[in-house]
């Protein structure tokens, strides 16, 4: 069991409150996934190319940033938060990400993009939210996840969300039964997986499809055919998000929409505190059906 919440703000007046609205949603899903948690926030305002990174305690972030700058010619700023760092890269973000993964194995690159910032940890979800200041974060939309591990160990890097490409990420409730076979196929296709987690395989699958030219919708249609197991997936993109449940649909999901926001959660109780919820249209997403919000880069998420 895991818990998922997602919030997409249509009303810009709510942007300053994104994190404040999401934190209680995440907290409400604690008993679905008390062992670890994570969240991705899509900042509002101007684009700011960023790598969200994780490394063991005591890691030399300034040294790594200097080495990255020297190697790629980009300017690299460091904002440290606990065992995470946001590397602000003025230069080729893809090249910087690749260089870090190839040359600094202690670093886990959790996300890359111009708006996305991702944080994750083990333990009480609300404590993870506090450590990384979820409540004070502003933005257009975000996803969060509480994890009850089934297929792999409880580790920080095994927490969700998982990156599926620039400014895209995935959270998963369920378990995949063919992740081992898919992992081999994806690695042969050049995908770099950083954990033993089955959900990361789903993320890598979407990343691979989109790298090969699929739109997010096409990648999700391919996922419906190739992913075997139970899943409710929520995928964040630069300007929206998508929801997909497997055709058996054992894993729950509730969607709610008002003029001001769209919310997704594993259970309604996570949506219940949102402003104006009493006037929301509330429904359960159909099995095997792709739901999307936002436009623009949804068509070409990668």
């Amino acid at each position, binding site marked *: 069991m895991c818990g998922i919440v997602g919030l997409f703000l249509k009303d810009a007046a709510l942007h300053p409150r994104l994190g404040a609205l999401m934190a209680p949603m995440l907290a409400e899903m604690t008993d679905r996934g008390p062992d670890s948690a994570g969240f991705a926030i899509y900042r509002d305002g101007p684009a700011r190319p960023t790598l969200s990174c994780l490394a063991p305690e005591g890691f030399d972030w300034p040294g790594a940033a200097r080495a990255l700058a020297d190697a790629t010619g980009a300017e690299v700023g460091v904002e440290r938060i606990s065992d995470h760092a946001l590397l602000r890269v003025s230069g080729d973000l893809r090249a910087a990400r690749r260089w870090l993964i190839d040359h600094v194995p202690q670093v886990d690159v959790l996300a890359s993009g111009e708006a996305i910032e991702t944080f994750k940890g083990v333990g009480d979800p609300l404590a993870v939210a506090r450590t990384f200041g979820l409540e004070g974060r502003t933005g257009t939309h975000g996803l969060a996840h509480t994890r009850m591990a089934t297929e792999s160990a409880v580790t920080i890097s095994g927490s969700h969300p998982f990156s599926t490409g620039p400014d895209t990420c995935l959270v998963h409730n369920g378990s995949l039964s063919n992740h081992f076979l898919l992992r081999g196929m994806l690695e042969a296709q050049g995908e770099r997986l950083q954990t033993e987690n089955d959900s990361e395989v789903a993320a890598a699958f979407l990343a691979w499809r989109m790298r090969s030219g699929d739109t997010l919708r096409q990648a999700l249609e391919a996922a419906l055919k190739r992913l075997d197991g139970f899943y409710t997936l929520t995928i964040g993109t630069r300007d929206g998000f998508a929801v997909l449940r497997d055709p058996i649909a*054992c894993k729950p999901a509730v969607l709610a929409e008002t003029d001001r926001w769209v919310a997704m959660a594993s259970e309604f*109780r996570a949506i219940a505190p949102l402003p104006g919820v009493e006037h929301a249209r*509330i429904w359960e997403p159909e099995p095997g059906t792709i739901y999307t919000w936002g436009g623009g880069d949804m068509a070409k998420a990668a």
Partner: protein
Amino acid sequence: MSDGITATAEAQANTALDLTTLSVREANRALQSAKGGAFRLLNPGGKHALACGLSQPVSVSIEGHAGYYCAGMNQRAEVTVHGNAGTGLAENIMSGTVRVTGDASQSAGATGHGGLVVIAGNASARCGISMKGVDIVVGGDVGHMSAFMAQAGNLVVLGDAGPDLGDSIYEARLFVRGAVARLGTDCVEKEMRAEHLDLLRDLLARAGMQADPAEFRRYGSARRLYHFKVDNAGAY
């Protein structure tokens, strides 16, 4: 609380239990210990296991959306959810009535032995799974695998039914007014006789639904899965 509950019926009519101040356990304890009367559950906020395990003829109005396993194991009580209900509404209901004004999530009325479950909106997957005598009336559609392994009782659907309706069904009766996406294994359409029209008319009236019984089709078990086939002995 139980002392207050045994007061006059008039006083009970206004008994409000507010879940912003009471825990679910406290509210359920109050409902379970009442011998009768009417209650309002305020601010349910999608919480789980609301109004569960009631065994006396109390009336409960849940004023908002309910979470999982609402009104589970109900006996004799009348529970109405003014909103939607999560997974496992009225699971293992024995008697009494459970109504939902909105939609219900999966496994509504699962394993129910008796009583009536009325869902004004849609029910999702596995509605009436393993039902054992309960009557379920759904104003909208039901999702896939509804009435899976149904053993007894009646499922009435005013809208459409998703794929694999009545898979591995035993003896329950399924009445669907709209389209059935696909019948499950061993589930077949059956003749609608006068006795079924009477039964359906009564069910619709008790549910408070306006529909003409003649517009429904009946489905049930082909009874091909009842007995072990000796032809298959070699497989073991």
